[in-house]
């Protein structure tokens, strides 16, 4: 159980950059950026995150990238580059949209069940291997021999998954955090691969239950999703299109939110807010009264150690 105040995350939804800077000022650890390959008239999440990298200084940036509709090599490159541009604040919300419409955008066969879980696992595994493919000290700039790189420290990964293979190395040097922080729903069925399991459940009991399971499956951190609606809001819980559970809802005022978050904090390590009205953020920030996180990297903020490189030989 967590001893400290739970970390705060904010889902930006379609709202623009100012919300991220406000969240940063309000002490949030990270923002997530939902996306869909069918997102149409919405700016792609990776592009938005990269832009925010230079509009913010301490907050983590977690775009949703879908493994089902992109090249795993590009995905790993884009995320590594986000981490470089943000000086170590990059994260990834693993998306796995697998509707027929999503797959039609790339002309790949639709996957489901165990096959889909294998694809997600492969995409996460190859990304982490590619992030390790350059050792931290691969760039040596040795004037005496004329060598810019130590070729022994830039590695082929020779990854073979169920449906794709990647030789590597990545075209981008190792990210500042070593590996980006990987978030994903516990309902993806790959909790053992996640740094942060995201739990959307309608009751505290169910959150408690699934948190226990996520920890047993090996997730270092667990965050609960919390929808925040204006006081007096009475619309019924929405049914999510992908069949996943609706998250916990808070319909009281901002004043009552700190207590709920504190209660959740006895169960989970963090709470991700989804604001029905983004205009509510200043009130929530005032009620919470938190200072900005100090970072400098997202791993520092979350207390996650920087991973050793799998290719580095132990000195």
């Amino acid at each position: 159980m967590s001893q400290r105040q739970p970390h705060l995350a904010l889902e930006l939804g379609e709202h623009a950059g100012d919300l991220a800077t406000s969240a940063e000022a309000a002490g949030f650890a990270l923002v997530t950026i939902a996306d869909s390959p069918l997102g149409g008239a919405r700016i792609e999440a990776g592009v938005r995150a990269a832009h925010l990298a230079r509009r913010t200084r301490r907050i983590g940036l977690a775009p949703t990238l879908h493994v089902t509709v992109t090249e795993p090599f590009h995905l790993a490159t884009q995320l590594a580059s986000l981490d470089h541009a943000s000086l170590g604040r990059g994260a990834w919300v693993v998306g796995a949209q697998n509707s027929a419409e999503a797959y039609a955008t790339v002309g790949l066969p639709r996957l489901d069940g165990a096959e889909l879980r294998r694809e997600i696992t492969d995409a996460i595994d190859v990304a982490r291997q590619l992030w390790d493919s350059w050792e931290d000290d691969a760039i040596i700039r040795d004037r005496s021999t004329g060598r810019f790189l130590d070729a022994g420290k830039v590695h082929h990964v020779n990854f073979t998954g169920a449906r794709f293979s990647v030789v590597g190395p990545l075209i981008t040097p190792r990210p500042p955090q070593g590996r980006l922080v990987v978030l994903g729903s516990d309902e993806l069925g790959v909790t053992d691969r996640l740094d942060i399991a995201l739990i959307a459940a309608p009751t505290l009991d169910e959150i408690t239950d699934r948190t226990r399971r996520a920890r047993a499956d090996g997730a270092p951190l667990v965050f609960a999703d919390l929808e925040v609606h204006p006081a007096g809001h009475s619309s019924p819980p929405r049914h999510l299109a992908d069949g996943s559970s609706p998250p916990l809802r808070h319909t009281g005022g901002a004043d009552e939110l700190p207590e709920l978050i504190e209660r959740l904090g006895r169960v989970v390590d963090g709470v991700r807010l989804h604001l029905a009205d983004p205009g509510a953020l200043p009130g929530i920030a005032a009620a919470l009264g938190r200072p900005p996180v100090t970072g400098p990297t997202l791993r520092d903020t979350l207390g996650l150690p920087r991973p050793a490189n799998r290719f580095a030989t132990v000195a």
Partner: protein
Amino acid sequence: MSHRLHLGVFFTGVGPQLIWTDPAFSSHTHIDTFIATAKTLERGLFDAFFLGEGLRVRENRGRVHDLDVAGRPDAITQLAALAAETSRIGLVATQNTTYNFPADLARRLAGLDAISGGRAGWNIVTTDNAWTGENFRNGGWLPHDRRYARAGAFVEVAKALWQGHPVDRHDDLIDVTAAPTVPARPVLFQAGDSPGGRDLAARHADVVFSANTDYHKAIAYAADLRRRLAGHGRSPDSLRILPGAAVVLGDTPAEAAEKARWIQREQVTGPRALAFLEQYWGKDLSGYDPDGPLPDIEPTEGELDPSRGTISIEHRTGKAERIAGWRRLAAERDLSIRDLVIEVTPQHSTFVGTPSQIADEWSRYVRDRAADGFNILPQLLPGTIEDIVDKLIPELQSRGVYRTEYEGTTLREHLDLPG
């Protein structure tokens, strides 16, 4: 009608062009280097900052090539970050049509264009080799002669999605059903040197980034391209020609020439000269003296090593003839290995001189419509760019061939392209 010069900087991020031994060189991968470069270019009123991309790290005989700068960010990600740090400069991403999904890439490019307020460009490239494809789902699926057919179809899909049209296309080149992206209109760049590339450029490109920099070649190239444009019903003014170029400035012609010689020797170091020959000999030549004669052994003819990132396709066959030619050249002119490599390395043309000399020469290119400007490949960072902005730009401005302020905000406006 614009008779003004347009300038971009092509930041390749790999290869021997950039001299990392320069004491002023800090890091070619750190975001701060990109930000500082983009801001200097904006101060110099450049049209575009242009990032290269290659989808496999270059290798020499199965190992990562270790002599040149290497490692670069994803171009769209990096440029989206730079969009937040700049307000005018065009942001051009090199992106590959062979190893991308059209709807995915179109959506990311549209995002860059939207988030930058219309400053995005796309340098359209293709990859012919299965070696690069080993990093992708459909590795090596596309035969060399179909690269441009795929690229053309890919660009058509992207344009339709940007213009608000859904796409439903299923053939042997493209398999996509997708809804429109955010409205966008990235400026399309193309290298356009091979016949297939020239035709793709004439059909789709707004800017060509050619290797025909030499004045007479540039004149011939421009004439050929304008003829092809007409064949596609496009006006001759609907395309900008910006050949790649290197620039070496000095306060006197002698100083510039001396600096150019120094740069060349730094770019072709002894180990690099040997590595260059190793691509043709296909074996370890590190025991040879780069300042001595050519290797006294002949390469074994056979499968070319997979160093495809460092050797262009035209050079993968006929190696024995090429080597015989080099031997004749070296014997005739008494060249060492390093001298020979300096002599035969394909290079973008270099303008060497005082700011005033180069400003005169470039004015002539623009006046004669040999080129609409140049894409500059810096050898020194930040030196090359700072010199150009501080010394060459004022000379160009005083000749009336270069803007004195940005008139527009979009890349399309900077380039004076049809609206």
